[in-house]
């Protein structure tokens, strides 16, 4: 009971509920299917990125290059499809983006697992390298007329309808990818030995090595997997936004995504984190950044509110942990 109360998941869920209640009080139209669909849509790309960040955090690393990698993947893929195979359907384009992402992830993996460099520094470096390479050698121009396949995908709706008050709502099929990524990652992390090895490495890399876990191989695979997720997130982002922007501001979502994952209970020290928590963290960030106006708060205050939520979401558990520690120590 008290352990449940002390968990980040519970706390974040509580804040989400409270936020929704205030939202409903401030605006009767707030609790509606259109709002829900808007939020779900806004959470797709962040959610996939966050799952990737979670896996890296669990493995004891940190990855600040995912959004940069995602942008390279989305741009390279779009450019390729546009110039080489304009008729390509979205499934192949998505696969291509995931492969590009995985290859870039493998670069991170080689530097980290192969050369034994610290993850933060490597990904800080590749964040610049990926982006610099893209803009210097691939292109710096935005593509706003996406190839047909990608545009079709963004118009393909999983749910579509009209609310009682006549407002139209829809949820794109892209959402299914988020669900798929979550299920797959859950299976890998909790049902395969590889996943358990990821947790083990995050718990103690030296112990993992000593017990015979192929630490470098596992680390490498983690970064390849996260790269593939990043590539997928990137191409979905481009297709939903209907623009492939090599200087996409998705880049700036890296820290908020990290914040969402940690809000959800993953520890920066590694070895701890859950998918439920991650999804809750993403939900909270999405909820706040998309609905302040509905609460009557001018959007100039958005960053203040998100800032306070991050402090609250990390502060309460930290404070609780400290109290527990003082009690037990």
């Amino acid at each position: 009971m008290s352990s449940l109360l002390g968990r980040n998941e519970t706390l974040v869920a509580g804040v989400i509920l409270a936020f929704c209640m205030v939202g409903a009080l401030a605006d009767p139209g707030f609790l509606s299917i259109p709002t829900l669909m808007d939020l779900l849509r806004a959470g797709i790309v962040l959610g996939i990125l966050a799952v990737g960040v979670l896996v890296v955090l669990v493995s004891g690393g940190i990855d600040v290059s995912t959004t940069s990698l995602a942008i390279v993947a989305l741009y390279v893929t779009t450019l390729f499809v546009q110039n080489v195979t304009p008729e390509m359907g979205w499934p192949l384009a998505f696969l291509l983006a995931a492969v590009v992402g995985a290859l870039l992830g493998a670069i991170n993996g080689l530097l980290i697992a192969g050369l034994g460099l610290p993850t933060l520094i490597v990904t800080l470096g590749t964040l610049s390298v990926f982006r610099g390479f893209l803009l210097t050698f691939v292109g710096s121009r935005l593509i706003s007329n996406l190839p047909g396949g990608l545009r079709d995908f963004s118009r393909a709706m999983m749910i579509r309808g009209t609310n009682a008050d006549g407002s139209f709502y829809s949820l794109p099929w892209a959402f299914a990818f988020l669900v798929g990524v979550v299920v797959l990652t859950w299976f890998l992390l909790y049902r395969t030995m590889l996943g358990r090895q990821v947790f083990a490495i995050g718990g103690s890399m030296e112990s993992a090595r000593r017990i015979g876990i192929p630490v470098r191989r596992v680390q490498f695979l983690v970064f390849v997997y996260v790269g593939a997720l990043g590539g997928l997130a990137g191409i979905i982002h481009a297709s939903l936004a209907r623009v492939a922007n090599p200087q996409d501001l998705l880049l700036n979502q890296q820290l908020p995504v990290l914040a969402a994952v940690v809000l959800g209970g993953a520890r920066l020290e590694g070895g701890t984190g859950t998918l439920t928590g991650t999804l809750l963290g993403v939900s909270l960030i999405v909820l706040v950044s998309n609905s302040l106006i509905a609460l009557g708060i001018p959007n100039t205050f958005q960053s203040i509110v998100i800032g306070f939520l991050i402090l609250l979401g990390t502060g309460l558990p930290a404070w609780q942990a400290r109290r527990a520690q003082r009690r037990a120590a």
Partner: protein
Amino acid sequence: QEAAEGAAAEGSSGPYDIATVVKIAGIQWFNRMEEGVKQFAADTGNNAFQVGPAQADPQQQAALIEDMIAQGVDAIAVVPMSPEALEPVLGRAQEAGIVVVSHEAASQQNVSYDIEAFKNEDFGATLMENLAQCMGGEGEYAVFVGSLTSQTHNQWVDGAIAYQQANYPNMTLVGDKNETFDDQQQAYAAAQEVLRAHPNIKGFQGSASTDVAGIGLAIEERGMEDQSCVVGTSLPSIAGQYIETGAVDMIGFWDPSLAGYVMNSVAQMVLNGEEVTSGMDLGQTGYESVTLDGKVIYGQAWVEVNKDNLADYPF
């Protein structure tokens, strides 16, 4: 190239190094401008090129200008994200003997000339007239700017609001000016917020070329193409796909490639010691007979595009 430098140092005429520094690299508006810059280089044999920061950040733009000073270019043509923020660095450029010409910044002090395609308040009023027509003269509308410090954007929006207050009392502006930093996705996010906060909204006026595209996407996602009116500054290559579906109703613009060309021409004239006077023909469409007001050079043409004449403008 070496010869160019030597020549510049001696103050003789060309070929010159002229850097065009734009607000942000990569968006179609400035890609189109770059075509004009390249055309100028090809036509005149000067070393004219264009650079722009990765993000629409006044600081990054200032740093780029600093780089150009260090490179020792002969002239800088700049489209300021925020004119006031650039004054010191442009002042340093002038101290270093570099000629500075600006565009979309009528208040800029440390320049030889500023070039405006037209009177910006009038352009804003015209956008509003189109919006009001579409909205039937009544209902709520919102306005978007690239930045609260981007001079023309604010002139258009202020001009539009004044025009609406004078002519369409049944229309109401909701919210503050929404800032989008010349980014389509920020415009999309802001449009979504506006739609959520003001469910009855009918009109949108955009300023940055990417604004109407972001607004248009939000409109399409809600299936509101027919119930809403979206107008703003943009290019067919950016807004075309939304004009086709009716998510965007009308755009206005001036051809950035011509503006880029003219900035470079004026810079070259200044380098050659020539002056610009009212009535002068700067050799490009819309700048055949310019008006000079202080340091500001005005051209006189803008283009209005809707579904019907979209095909006439292939850029």
